[in-house]
């Protein structure tokens, strides 16, 4: 009996200890494994790294953060289940969740219904538009990538282009978004081709594009290895008009896969994180991206990816909002997130408004050109 009582007391002590330790609960559902693991994996590492860092420095207004991460494996059904669990069982104060657009779209309604602030890391514009009360987003949208590309084309007096798009969700979405704004820039699409996400030869499609007279540039909204193969085939066929890619391939491994020789002269919009060290010292974003890059690379031993940066931005926006709100009260935190002004993250400067829960502008993107197997910033 005494043993039992002692054990109960010990258990009670343990419980109260954890309570004293973790007073703010942040829940996260990420695609750590599965096809979207390249998104979820750096996001998880980033969150864990920086939560530990914040806790070591005393937490938020003296309260420690408890981070709960679930892996949805890229499956929207799992994402929904885990988000429900976070809200109902774990009773989290805020959500940093959703690696892909599909998983995010499954989580948003739950956060709305339960009234939990949610910052998501999805790419597509649907993940933030139309504006929902509790939902926020940190990554640039594909629409912004399109605008950045068209701006650059306009500067080069390119008015007639061809599009070769991946037939996956990302490629389709970005292609559709591009078509909604292309008219604004006076650019005309002369020819369109697609390829399947796992195709390993696009010479047939590119041959058709090559045969179209008047094409001044080619745009490839795509993701994964597809754009790398497009770039190789482009070189093989000797097409000599400029080639543009979307922001989805902005990583060092893309240049390696496409081979530096074939990638020479290719342009794409990307977050400043990719060219952290190359930014001019006068750039207000330089400090935050260089710091994040160094920390991430030192702690994980892996090259930094823009996707982890989105998680960093989300966490920091949330933490700042909680500090200003003086705690984890959900409604107050939500209001404070919406009031985020002049926050410099890895994705650019964030100015949230009641009708803009993304808060990024085009300056968040840098237009890059690949030269000698490395990125250079185009002005």
């Amino acid at each position: 009996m005494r043993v039992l009582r002692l054990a109960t007391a010990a258990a009670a002590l343990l419980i109260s200890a954890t309570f004293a330790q973790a007073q703010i609960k942040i829940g996260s559902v990420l695609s750590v494994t599965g096809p979207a693991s390249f998104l979820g994996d750096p996001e998880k590492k980033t969150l864990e790294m920086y939560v530990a860092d914040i806790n070591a420095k005393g937490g938020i207004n003296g309260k420690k953060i408890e981070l709960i991460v679930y892996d949805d494996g890229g499956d929207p059904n799992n994402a929904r289940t885990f988000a429900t669990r976070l809200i109902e069982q774990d009773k989290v104060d805020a959500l940093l969740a959703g690696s892909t657009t599909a998983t995010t779209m499954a989580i948003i309604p739950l956060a709305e219904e339960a009234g939990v602030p949610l910052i998501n890391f999805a790419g597509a514009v649907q993940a933030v538009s139309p504006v929902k009360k509790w939902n926020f987003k940190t990554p640039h949208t594909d629409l912004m990538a399109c605008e950045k590309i068209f701006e650059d084309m306009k500067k080069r007096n390119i008015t007639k282009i061809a599009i070769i798009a991946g037939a996956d969700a990302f490629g389709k979405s970005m292609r559709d978004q591009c078509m909604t704004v292309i008219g604004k820039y006076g650019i005309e699409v002369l020819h369109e081709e697609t390829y399947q996400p796992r195709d390993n030869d696009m010479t047939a499609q590119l041959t058709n594009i090559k045969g179209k007279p008047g094409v001044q540039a080619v745009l490839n909204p795509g993701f994964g290895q597809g754009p790398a193969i497009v770039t190789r085939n482009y070189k093989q066929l000797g097409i000599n008009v400029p080639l543009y890619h979307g922001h989805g391939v902005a990583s060092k491994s893309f240049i390696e896969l496409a081979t530096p020789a074939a990638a020479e002269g290719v342009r794409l919009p990307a977050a400043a994180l990719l060219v952290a060290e190359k930014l001019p010292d006068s750039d207000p974003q330089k400090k935050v991206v260089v710091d994040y890059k160094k920390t991430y690379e030192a702690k994980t031993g892996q090259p930094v990816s823009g996707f982890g940066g989105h998680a960093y931005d989300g966490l920091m926006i949330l933490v700042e909002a909680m500090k200003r709100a003086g705690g984890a009260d959900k409604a107050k935190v939500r209001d404070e997130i919406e009031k985020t002004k002049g926050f410099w993250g890895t994705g650019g400067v964030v100015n949230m408004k009641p009708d803009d829960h993304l808060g990024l502008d085009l300056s968040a993107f840098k237009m890059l050109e690949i030269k000698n197997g490395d990125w250079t910033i185009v002005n």
Partner: protein
Amino acid sequence: MPEFLQFLFSGLTIGAIYALVALGFTLIYNASDVINFAQGEFVMLGGMVTFFAAAAGVPLPLAALLAIVVAVAVGLLLHRFAIEPARGASAVTLIIITIGASILLRGVAAVVFDKNFHSFPPFAGTTPWNVGGATILPQSVIVLLGAGIIVVAMWALMSMTLIGKAMVATAANKLAAQLTGINTRAIIGLSFAVSAAIGAIGGILVTPITLTSYDVGTLLALKGFAAAMLGGMGHPFGAVVGGLIVGLLESFGAGYISSAYKDAIAFIVILAVLFFMPNGLFGKASAERV
């Protein structure tokens, strides 16, 4: 005309890959009646092992050899621990086992290697050759030559060596082969080893063109299977022709009709052929005596 040539080259290159996968299917099917859906994983192993061995500092030819050895070892293990213990099971059960094995291999590859795409430099330079206004990569020629050599070697093995004859005999009638003193278990094991080697060689040859990752096998297995069916399951020559036809259909479909439906076009043609010739282009009509 340059377009036509370009589609032709592109189709032949891709078709040669499918042909090699289809050949692997055929070999194992012939010896054991098993349709081995882990065939694409041998292709993956060929590319991935070569890349990681080369990245670890092993010279490329040695790395390629190592990849073949690894694939053969995996093929033998697959036979010994998955197929052999279930030898009395029905064909469907065996197919399910190979699908399971392919999922396992993919999972292990994702953990042992990583989930990124990889490539290594082509064996004969990157400058494309210009033929009649179309371009072809030297590596594509190597793939085609490699596929051709493998097919000839297979034919020589089957018709000129005692082991090959034993394989043919096992394929024709397992019981009768056993009665004449052929170790059919060893022969079936050998067929797994050889088709693993063919898959791995294919993977090594095409990786500089198509890139590789832990999960390239699934789609290749599907396309290779379609090619094998088209050519007539169990017919090595048919497998090669079937592979080339599927590749050509895809590239001409994408080029002349629509890139959005190119896979659909290929599969519709295959279905149409199988509708009129259920045993494939080269398969013999099967008649069973009751």
